[in-house]
């Protein structure tokens, strides 16, 4: 066994991965987190908005501050974080990573927690490859983290929370947002966000989508049109908008390739972003020793990712005999309750039902 091998390896230093590593450390097991990025914190680092929910779920705190807190807590408790270290493969339980993008390290940890997050979905249309067309997250990263405006005038495709929040943040950064187009008849995101956008005078256009972008070397014009209930263009509704940027906010998909390599069984749950590994109540996948947490286990919020991370850390540490039965039961109940609390309300209820299907998928395989 390699001297660098911890009891438990966590892949991904976002909210789920850091919460998992902190939980594991609290039970005295050794843990290493591998992350491909130069800084820990995952996508929280670019989230300048305040979170909703109750106080224990960091309500009222900005994502960037939650990320910083988690990183400090992980450092304080002695979690080892390997940065610039993409995990490149899992071969029969052997996990291979490129430490510092340079040295190949293969280890066989007793438990592995996959907290690899999600990737944004793209939409294709004529001109979608022109510079100026980017994911909403890309715009958010460059504006909020690197402090560079990605364009002067923006059209946003998709009115889910990501589209609405990014519209607001681009405006804060001094870009003009010409419109948000939404293919569905209703706005996808929360009413509070949509109201804020409308107060700023940014039109949200339901049943509209992007037709094409035009430009020489980069986006110069964006053509939108109305669509009917079957998503067919309505003739005569084309509008040309002078804009240099298009942000695609078309949802996300779990980044599940490592789970595929580990041999995990999958389930397709469209409400949570597509295919993901099934897991049980403590986030263990169908492959013994492998756990999932956060967006890889279904696209939700950073707050749910943190609770899932704790669950995975608890489950993994308990399975190694590091947690007393009473403590295990107590924490299991607390984290499960916290997740139930986060998954209430009209949006949350749907997610709760969808998450139950992920667990049902596990039960079907296990029994």
């Amino acid at each position, binding site marked *: 066994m390699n001297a660098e091998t911890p009891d438990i390896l966590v892949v991904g230093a976002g909210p789920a991965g850091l919460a998992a590593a902190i939980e594991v450390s609290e039970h005295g097991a050794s843990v290493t987190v591998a992350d*491909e*990025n*130069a800084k820990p914190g995952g996508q929280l680092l670019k989230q*300048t908005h305040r979170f909703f929910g109750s106080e224990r779920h960091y309500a009222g705190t*900005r994502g960037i501050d939650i990320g910083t807190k988690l990183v400090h807590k992980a450092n304080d408790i002695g979690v080892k974080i390997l940065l610039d270290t993409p995990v490149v493969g899992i071969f029969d339980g052997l996990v291979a990573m490129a430490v510092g993008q340079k040295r190949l390290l293969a280890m066989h940890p007793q438990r592995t927690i996959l907290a690899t997050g999600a*990737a*944004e979905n*793209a939409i294709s249309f004529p001109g979608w*490859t*022109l*510079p*100026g*067309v*980017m*994911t909403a*997250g*890309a*715009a958010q*990263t*460059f*504006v*909020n983290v*690197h*402090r*560079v*405006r*990605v364009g002067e005038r923006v059209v946003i495709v998709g009115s889910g929370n990501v589209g609405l929040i990014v519209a607001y943040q681009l405006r*804060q*950064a*001094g870009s003009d947002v010409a419109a948000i187009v939404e293919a569905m008849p209703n706005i996808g995101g929360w009413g509070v966000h949509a109201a804020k956008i409308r107060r700023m005078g940014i039109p949200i256009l339901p049943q509209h989508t992007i037709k094409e972008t035009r430009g020489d*070397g*980069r986006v110069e014009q964006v053509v939108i049109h109305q669509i009917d209930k079957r998503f067919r263009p309505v003739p005569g509704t084309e509008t040309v908008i002078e804009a240099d940027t298009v942000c695609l906010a078309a949802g996300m998909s779990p980044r599940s390739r490592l789970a595929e390599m580990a041999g995990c069984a999958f389930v397709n749950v469209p409400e949570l972003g597509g295919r993901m590994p099934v897991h049980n109540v403590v986030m263990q996948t169908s492959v013994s020793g492998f756990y999932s947490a956060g967006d890889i286990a279904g696209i939700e919020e950073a707050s749910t990712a943190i609770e899932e991370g704790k669950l995975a850390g608890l489950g993994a540490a308990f399975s190694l005999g590091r947690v007393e039965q009473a403590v295990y039961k107590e924490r299991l109940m607390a984290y499960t309750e916290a997740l139930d609390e986060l998954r209430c309300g009209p949006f949350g209820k749907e997610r709760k039902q969808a998450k139950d299907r992920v667990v049902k998928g596990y039960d079907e395989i296990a029994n």
Partner: protein
Amino acid sequence: MRRIHEHPILGTLKDAEECTIVVDSKPMLARAGEPILAALLAHGVYATRLTEKLREPRGLFCGIGLCTDCLVTVNGVQNVRSCITPVEEGMVIETQTGGKRER
């Protein structure tokens, strides 16, 4: 300039050490440690490369190193992801013009 100096939430942009990179033979000032693509965008360079066959421009797309659209040549090494690779003093960057693959 496209840099965001003042931000209502994040405050004033902190001073950073400046470094000079060379982009397509021209010197360009960058903030030490920022990704190559941030420096390029700040100076209005949006296309990082042309595709090999159709010579179509490409630039920022995912911003986190996943999509490999924003590739540039750095110090002679091709296909470097400009959105996640930090600038270094004296770095020589070429926007790629495709057709560089060895055949």
